[in-house]
């Protein structure tokens, strides 16, 4: 049974308990142990990287160093945290002078970054360490005939030499449930979350572009693996009613909610009522 250090970040626990709980429920099915990390906080997001590169390196190197104590890899359910941890890991393992500089600061807090464990997105760990065949054995409520558009999210995919993430992982995790992956032109495009603090109008336009592209390609549902992307694609649909007078009615589910439902979990176990755009139409597919 694989064990991981669980790095939650700040957004999932505050905004998406439905994602957090399904993370544990799915992990439980496969005997995965998730250990909440002790003494950690936020990753700072790309905003911290933008204004204070050194500070961003230190706080994320500290998180990595804490995980090194028990030797388990870190998994996180957030693309933002994943992007920060992966980038800092990659940078410090390729830049000895910065590593030294960061460790001089970390010494004051009693830890040292060595680079002995890897930060990973939860879905990549699930895919590679549990495997698609094992997951398939647990699918009891297949989502046959359901078309799902995947929003992978920028910081999961790029820069690829840093994230080392293969988008087919996400595709396979959807297909194993029996659902089909709806291809749409803007699959690589940003949800707009990062620019929200500086230009809300632009952020809303980007969310609209995505939703439109998914909807026009025939998606019945969308899925995400990141709380910031969920803000933009799920919650922002309410804002789009006001700003553009458009209703997309495209339910957005976390990948763990979809896996949970396909493995026979009930709607309240996956926290379906917390999704802003009513996601219960997926239940009709399950019962139908």
């Amino acid at each position: 049974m694989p064990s991981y250090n669980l790095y939650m970040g700040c957004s999932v626990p505050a905004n998406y308990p439905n994602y957090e709980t399904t993370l544990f429920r799915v992990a439980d099915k496969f005997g995965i142990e998730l250990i909440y990390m002790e003494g950690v906080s936020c990753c700072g997001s790309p905003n911290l990287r933008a204004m204070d590169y050194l500070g961003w390196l230190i706080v994320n190197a500290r998180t990595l160093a804490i995980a090194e104590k028990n030797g388990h890899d870190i998994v996180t359910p957030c693309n933002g945290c994943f992007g920060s941890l992966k980038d800092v890991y990659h940078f410090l393992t390729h830049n000895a002078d910065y590593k030294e500089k960061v460790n001089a600061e970390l010494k004051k807090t009693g830890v040292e970054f060595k680079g002995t464990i890897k930060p990973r997105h939860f879905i990549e760990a699930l895919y590679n360490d549990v495997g698609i065949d094992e997951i398939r054995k647990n699918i009891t409520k297949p989502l046959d005939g359901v078309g799902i558009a995947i929003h992978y999210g920028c910081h999961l995919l790029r820069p690829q030499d840093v994230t080392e993430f293969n988008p087919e992982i996400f595709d396979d995790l959807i297909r194993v449930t029996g659902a089909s992956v709806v291809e749409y032109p803007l699959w690589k495009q940003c949800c707009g979350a990062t620019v929200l603090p500086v230009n809300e109008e632009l952020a809303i336009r980007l969310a609209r572009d995505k939703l439109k592209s998914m909807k026009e390609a025939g998606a019945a549902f969308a899925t995400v693996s990141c709380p910031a992307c969920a803000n933009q694609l799920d919650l922002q649909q309410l804002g789009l009613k006001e700003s553009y007078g458009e209703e997309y009615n495209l339910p957005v589910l976390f990948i763990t909610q979809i896996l949970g439902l396909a493995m026979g979990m009930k709607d309240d176990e996956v926290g379906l009522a917390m999704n802003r755009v009513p996601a219960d139409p997926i239940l009709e597919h399950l019962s139908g």
Partner: protein
Amino acid sequence: MTETEEKADPPAVMIEPIDISKLDPDFREGIRSMPNGEELSACFACSTCTAACPIASTWKYKPHQLIRMILLGMRKEVLSSEEIWLCLTCFECQERCPQNVRVTDIFFDCKNLAAEEGMIPDSIVGLARELTDKGQLYVVTADWEREDMDLEPEVPGLSTEEFKTILKGTRTGRIVGGDE
């Protein structure tokens, strides 16, 4: 085709002329020495980055122009541009660059330089304050929602003190302190 004497009249201006005396020759090297800036000079201005950018159509200076401006030494124009702060950080430009210029990373470097000089949007200063005051960007408020989902009301293991201390000692602290 003999109108050569009319050359006193400037041609239709497509871009503002660049005043060479105002260029900063050290700017290029400054960026090159920052994280992931090494490949900056490899840019051959193909503008693939701009074609890849989902929002460049709304920018005054496009990504390939910003890179060119850095190479020319247009420090002030780059660091005071709003474009660097509008960057989505989606890495589409960087991913497609045929010359391996780490365009998005370089814009991060530019923002760090701009922040050092106090050229930073108020909304980002606000986020800096959240980070030094609360130690995170989002704080759990609806703990009953967590309990409804069979989670601990407080996030297990969360500790913000050391995070705050670290950032108060780096540029974030100066950004916040400078505003008081």
